[in-house]
């Protein structure tokens, strides 16, 4: 990981997965293996409390077929992906 540590630090992101929606495609873990993992029940969960921007992470949020993923700015709470 790069950048300053600690919640709310500049550029830090929080990843959320709506596990009620997730259908376990694993597309997110494939696009951003550092940010998502599939549990034993086949549903995705974020791997860490905060993360940093990457193409893989934007792709994951963009590709999720059921829109179960949101990525928000840790400092402002503003959604950064998926974008409309």
């Amino acid at each position, binding site marked *: 990981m790069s950048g300053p540590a600690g919640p709310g630090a500049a550029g830090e992101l929080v990843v959320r997965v709506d596990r009620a929606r997730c*259908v376990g495609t694993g597309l997110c873990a494939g696009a951003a293996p550092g940010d998502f993992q*599939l549990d034993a029940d086949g549903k995705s969960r974020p791997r860490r409390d905060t993360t940093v921007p990457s193409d893989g992470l934007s792709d994951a949020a963009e*590709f999720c077929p059921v829109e179960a993923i949101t990525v928000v700015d840790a400092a402002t709470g503003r959604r950064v992906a998926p974008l409309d």
Partner: protein
Amino acid sequence: MSVTPGQAVPGQPLVPLHCLRFAEPGPPRQAALPNGTPVWLVSRHRDARQVLTDPAFGRALLYAPDAPPLTSTPNLLDDPDSLLNQDGPDHQRLRRTVQRAFTPRAVARWRPWVASVVEQLVDDLVKSGPPADVVAGFSTPLPVAVISRLMALDGLDQDRMRHWSNLALSDSSHTPEEVAAALREFGAFAAQLIAERRREPGEDLVSSLLAAAEAEGSIPERQLVSLVCGLVVGGHETTMTSLGNALVYLLSEAPESWVRLGTDEEAAGAAVEQLLRAIPLGEPKELPGTVRRASVEVEVGGVTIPAGAVVAVQSQIANRDPEVYAEGQFGDLFAPLAAPSLTFGAGPHHCLGAWLARMEMQLALHRLADRLPGLRLAEPVADIDWRLGSITRSPQRLTVVW
């Protein structure tokens, strides 16, 4: 002689799909395919979901050199180059070329256009009758028009598309030679389409998937050809089938629900989920369900499935599992589902076109019922002429009056 639930009784009229009865879900059990290949049947919702999502179960392994034969007439779903038959990173690489076009947000952008196609078809249907054939005039042309527009298939007429699709999804009623010939023709069409869009890219799905594949760099050409064929077939066959069979159910058994579909668009969306859960697309024939093969020994629902075993997920049974759906096959048609049904699968192969199919069905049922709240079948259900010879079954014709 006993009749397997869910299969036709020779000499008797075929029952509508919503009338098929299936065994109760239970733990995984061993059975044999018609060709003798041993198979594990998985029927509980929880177990079905596990098999579809666990990477220990794959599709590509079904076509490994040591794999047992599955069907006597291989069809498009058996093409080792198809999206459905890739696993792991190979699968993701190919799926990413098309995923962006099918997210709920991407599909929502097509909504006004799909609604206008639906309106046009309803207008034409109303002008042509009563009576009118709602299959030829509505449930077939809608998904055909949608996928043709998405892929810009200007040169492909509906009859040719339907012919290829029927053989591409053929059950054992066509010879392997007939199926192979149709698949060759279909493949040649797709290869030519790809060449054209490489020369002259447009705004369509084929152009965008080629651009994504180009950026990716290492996707074999055969997989792109197979993907284009899969999109043409997958893009209309299943939606046409679901819509046709939903109409049979609604018009023969649920006239009050039909009226409500027309007055409430949101309720129509909930009803589509219930209809897709409750009404299967076909009856189990050569394969008892959607198949996978275990790469290692895995425990499913308390039963040990050995490495190399073929497993069939019986989604139709899991979709009625009382542990998940207390109401059984049908309850309140407008209630939200207790859990996502398995109609669109789960896991890495979860249907690419699920949101498109949902939107088409919601708009179709809502707008048709809105315009024709008194729509009803002109003939008894027992007289329905069924489209046979493919793994899906739906009415060939459905004469309606209003």
